[in-house]
């Protein structure tokens, strides 16, 4: 782990996230997934966007460590299907989650074109399997609308940080922290135990 962090060019990402949270200011709010306050300071943030099916999602670029091609996973026993398995990321074992399966779309049929977005949440590194990376967008905070209270398509609103509507597209900004808290938290534990 040590060696990995120190040898990874994107290691500062982690500090960036933490700094954001600690600052508790505009960036901190965003990091915690609070809806942007309209009329607040127009801070610009960058998001990596990617597609799953026809939908486009975004993750704050500061939590993204790297994008890598698909490598075959090793399955983990008795877990829900959205836990794809684990892979070796330069000597560190990280779990891979299938975003499509997470949102009820069934397991992704992986091809060479599929990619894994490796994200860093706190001390933990995880991978999300998505169809393709589409863009990096720079968005000012007031361009992000709070998520609607209702379920958006197949995603529960609590996993969303907000919605960004560009000229010809809508990007759903994912709240990765909450998304993963749900995936590895107590909810999943129950499912896992039932699986046993």
């Amino acid at each position, binding site marked *: 782990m040590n060696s990995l962090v120190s040898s990874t060019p994107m290691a500062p990402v982690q500090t960036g996230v933490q700094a954001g949270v600690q600052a508790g200011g505009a960036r901190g709010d965003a990091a915690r997934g609070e809806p942007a306050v309209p009329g607040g300071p127009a801070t610009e943030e960058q998001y990596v966007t990617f597609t799953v099916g026809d939908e486009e999602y975004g993750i704050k670029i500061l939590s993204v460590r790297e994008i890598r091609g698909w490598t075959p996973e090793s399955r983990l026993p008795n877990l829900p299907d959205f836990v794809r398995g684990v892979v*070796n990321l330069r000597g560190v074992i990280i779990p891979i989650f299938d975003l499509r399966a997470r949102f009820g779309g069934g397991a992704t049929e992986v091809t060479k074109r599929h990619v894994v977005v490796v994200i860093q949440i706190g001390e933990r590194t995880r991978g999300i399997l998505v169809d393709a990376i589409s863009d990096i967008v720079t968005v000012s905070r007031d361009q992000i609308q709070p998520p609607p209270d209702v379920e958006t398509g197949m995603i529960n609103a609590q996993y969303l940080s907000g919605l960004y509507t560009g000229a010809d597209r809508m990007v759903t900004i994912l709240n990765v922290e909450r998304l993963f808290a749900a995936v590895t938290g107590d909810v999943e534990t129950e499912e896992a135990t039932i699986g046993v």
Partner: protein
Amino acid sequence: MTNLDQFKQTYFDESAELLGVAEAGLLRLAPGQVDDDEVNAVFRAVHSIKGGAGAFGFTELVAFAHEFEAVMELVRSVRIPITTDLVDTLIRANDVLAQLVAYARDDGKPPDEFSAPVVEALRRFNVEDDDEADSAAERAPADPTPSNDTEGPETGLVDGTAGTSAQAAGRGAGGLVPVVTTPDQQTYTIVFIPKPDLLLSGNDPVFLMRALSRLGTIAVTCETGLVPPFAHLEPEHLFLSWRVRLTTDAAVAEIEDVFEFVSDESSLEITTEVASGDTDSSIDMVSDADASLKADSVEAAAASATVSATGTVATADRRRASGGDGGLAVHTIRVDLDKIDRLVNMVGEMVITQAMVAEHVRDLPPGSFQDLQEGLEQLAQHTRELRESVMSIRAQPVGSVFARMPRLVRELAGDTHKEVDLEMSGEATEVDKTVIENLVDPLTHMIRNSIDHGIESPEDRRRVGKSTRGTVHLSAQHRSGRIVIEVADDGRGIDRERVLAKAVQRGLIPSGSGLSDEEIDNLIFQPGFSTADKVTNISGRGVGMDVVRRNITNLGGRISVFSAPGKGSRFVLSLPLTLAVLDGMVISVGAERFVLPLTNIVESLRPRHNDLHSLVNRCDVMMARGRYVRLVYLHQLFGIPGAVLDPTEALVVLVEAENGERTGLVVDEVLGQQQVVIKSLEANFRRLDGVAAATILGDGRVALILDVAGVQDMNRRSSSGRARLLAAPPVSPIQTVEV
């Protein structure tokens, strides 16, 4: 500034060690049992802490250490009697000192009057002898003078190098053979302690002594204290050691050269004699000694005597001698743990890479690239050795944890009004640092449990005809690649009736479930179980043994309990030696591969039809070596598609958990043995049932390392309702709070 910080860090590190030394010494202090060395060690420890504190300006620390030291001085000079009260006070003082050091380290200020009560207690002892103490203080500086006086003549002697044999003999220097020194010459004491197998490598101490005699005049004393009784004599072993006084103008390096070829097989210590004026010109005596030495070894060999070679050759290290009082050679260095961890990680990566290369080479046509194959084999061996060396850096004697226990026992015995002796063995057993760090809590719990629940009160013990003093035995040993730690007491044992009643009362088991004794004993590991009728501050909150079990499981260990009513209980912990690498067997099930720890594997076999039997509750058993073992279908348990379903087509790996339970694991194939680096699944994910950890195989893919006992538990839970209760509670996965 950073420099100063560095020094401070060193000071705090050292203080921690010194506090440990002081505590250990104090704990051994008891009325009527005063070991001067121990007392001195404590005194020196306190004194050193005070000295360092002064240098960094930790005034409160200095003030307190001073009070502490003053009482220790009285103890040292045997002017106050050792009483239990005194020892208790000193131990408390040591605690306060430790806390003050901690405050100083964290730049915090201790609360006002923090140390006042203890200072007062200390002064009580000090005041009694206040006058004497003062006069002692006055005397103290004077002390060196007389000793200087006594040394005076000696020094004079050396200076003059005029010591005659008569004078030397007159001074009766305990059997040492005097040697004449000339001004350019130096006298060295060489202590040469060969290892027992020195002779096996074709070396002979006689030649070494001869070579030494060519350097100057020598006097040899042979130590025979280690020669065992004849019945135990190992003819080819050397049990002797030698002390040589060599007067020569040769340099230390020349002396060391003599021992160059035996340096691996012996311990050599060369010291310069400064003050000694033992002189004699009797070269005859020297050669006599040489001759008798020869005779010794010849005789020894002839008489198939074990020549125990404790040959300590002392080389005078001039650098050391000139180095003043910092004269101790440095045998240890402090290394930042991070650096070692990085090293461990790198070695881990190397093991993986090596496995990867090996896998590719295996695919080459047989017979080709002979050199490559051989080279690779060597590499594999070197990697293994490197790994072992690196791991040994992290290994620490388990004694560092054990050392905390006497204190605990002492306090608990006091609190519970019981008389308890703690016996310890195997303190030198080494185990990885991570394991050590995680052992403290479980061991503390277990010892508490033994004293609180196991050991009876003195009256009760007398009533059942036991000695009033109970014994808790703490031991550690290596057993088949694991460390086994036992906490055994000679108390009343587990009261099964009460345990059973309690378990029913708490709803842990339905009443009337006919459990075996062993199953009842294991109920104490259930969460929420506690038999103590009253909640004490020692135990009885019902969070004891299940927490112990959880901690141990998290370390990849197991805990089991054996109890005999009226005779005592024995808790046995079995832990992996290292949390970094293990020897494993790679197996496949469907498309998945798993690693089984080699220590769990008994054998693997392909069952025939008539070996297999089906029990009523759908549990299959197999006859293996005259014993029925339960079969566990890994594909079923883990939900793996595409596996071989028929055991007669598959393989059964007979595995044995640390508690001796055997199970037949049905797998598709056994792919081969391999050293694997243990990688954490929890670091980025979480713990999984039946899985100890993960690793990376030669092709870069991840494989899960199976936890045999965990798999057995899972199987039990899935196949039997009653067993579900007894199986380890599903360990709540370690969840980290997401930031």
